[in-house]
């Protein structure tokens, strides 16, 4: 009996000690989530990231693995966030040709949109008595996750909570955006795209591309520009507010 169980126990010790386990867990849960997402006709409610996070969190909780241990393995995926941020230059560049004459309104809309996003989230959270940790992480949640986490580190708030809030925002935005636009009777694709790019980041872009090519291009560009503007301005604003 002992002889039969020992090898399995050893394999387990080896696996859970190496980065492999965390990598498999991260990628396999995401793959599962993505498959479900495609099967559900890319419905934003079936969000692959949310599914992956739920399953992976449940697994490491069930086997009692400390988060730090998990992250040691998963950091190889995490590292690529920076590279993915650089890659956002490509959709921005592709959208540039259609930007003619719209740069000023778009920049203004992005600035006002972000200000509303941050102002409302931070004030509602602090009014309802959320702690510093949560309120702080509301600052950066209005931009795409890779940039948001970079900003979070700069303004000394939790990158983790920021990432979670950003993903939740993306899901909510992608689900709600069409209703908001129809309610406000907004028809031009470029306006719908831009608004969803600011409000719902990556998920919004996916949604926009599935409806209309022009909306998708504008959404990508809006998300990228919004991220850059926020990365430059947010640390300055936050430092000013805190001093």
């Amino acid at each position, binding site marked *: 009996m002992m002889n039969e169980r020992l090898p399995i126990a050893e394999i387990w010790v080896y696996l859970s000690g190496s980065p492999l386990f965390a990598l498999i867990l991260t990628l396999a849960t995401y793959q599962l989530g993505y498959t479900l997402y495609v099967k559900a006709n890319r419905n934003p409610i079936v969000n692959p*990231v949310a599914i992956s996070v739920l399953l992976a969190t449940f697994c490491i909780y069930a086997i009692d693995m400390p988060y730090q241990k998990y992250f040691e393995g998963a950091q190889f995926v995490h590292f690529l966030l920076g590279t*993915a941020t650089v890659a956002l230059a490509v959709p921005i560049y592709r959208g540039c040709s259609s930007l003619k004459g719209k740069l000023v309104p778009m920049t203004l809309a992005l600035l006002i949109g972000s200000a509303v996003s941050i102002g409302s*989230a931070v004030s509602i959270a602090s009014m309802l008595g959320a702690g510093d940790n949560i309120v702080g992480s509301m600052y950066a949640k209005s931009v795409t996750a890779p940039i948001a986490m970079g900003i979070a580190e700069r303004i000394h708030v939790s990158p983790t909570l920021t990432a979670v809030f950003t993903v939740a925002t993306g899901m909510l935005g992608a689900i709600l955006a069409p209703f908001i636009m129809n309610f406000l009777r907004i028809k031009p694709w470029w306006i719908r795209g831009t608004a969803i790019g600011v409000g719902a980041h990556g998920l919004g872009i996916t949604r926009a591309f599935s409806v209309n090519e022009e909306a998708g291009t504008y959404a990508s560009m809006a998300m990228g520009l919004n991220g850059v503007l926020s990365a430059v301005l947010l640390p300055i604003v936050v430092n000013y507010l805190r001093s």
Partner: protein
Amino acid sequence: MINGLVQLLIWQGLGELVSILLLPNIPGPVLGLLFLLAFLLVKGEVNQPLGMVADSFRQHLGLLFVPASVGVILFLPDLKTHALAVTAALLISVVLTIATTALVLKFFAKRAHDE
């Protein structure tokens, strides 16, 4: 594919370098993004390997923030206590953000149309 990845990593490295040496307030990858954008604007085209890697990153951007988001496990008690505040803040903020952005653009589009 490797070719595109190498290009991105080099721009990222350059961004990190400038961030550390000159502009500590801006994350390195964001500077990398700006450098690459400037490069593309000067070049006037996206080379094929770069476009391919950028597209696959965009498609699976979500995967990359799974590791950090799993850290939510550390904050569960905190989030449970403030569930209402978090939900209300996220929900109201996202509706206001999308509505405001769209209305500002609509205002400008209408003005441009009237002129």
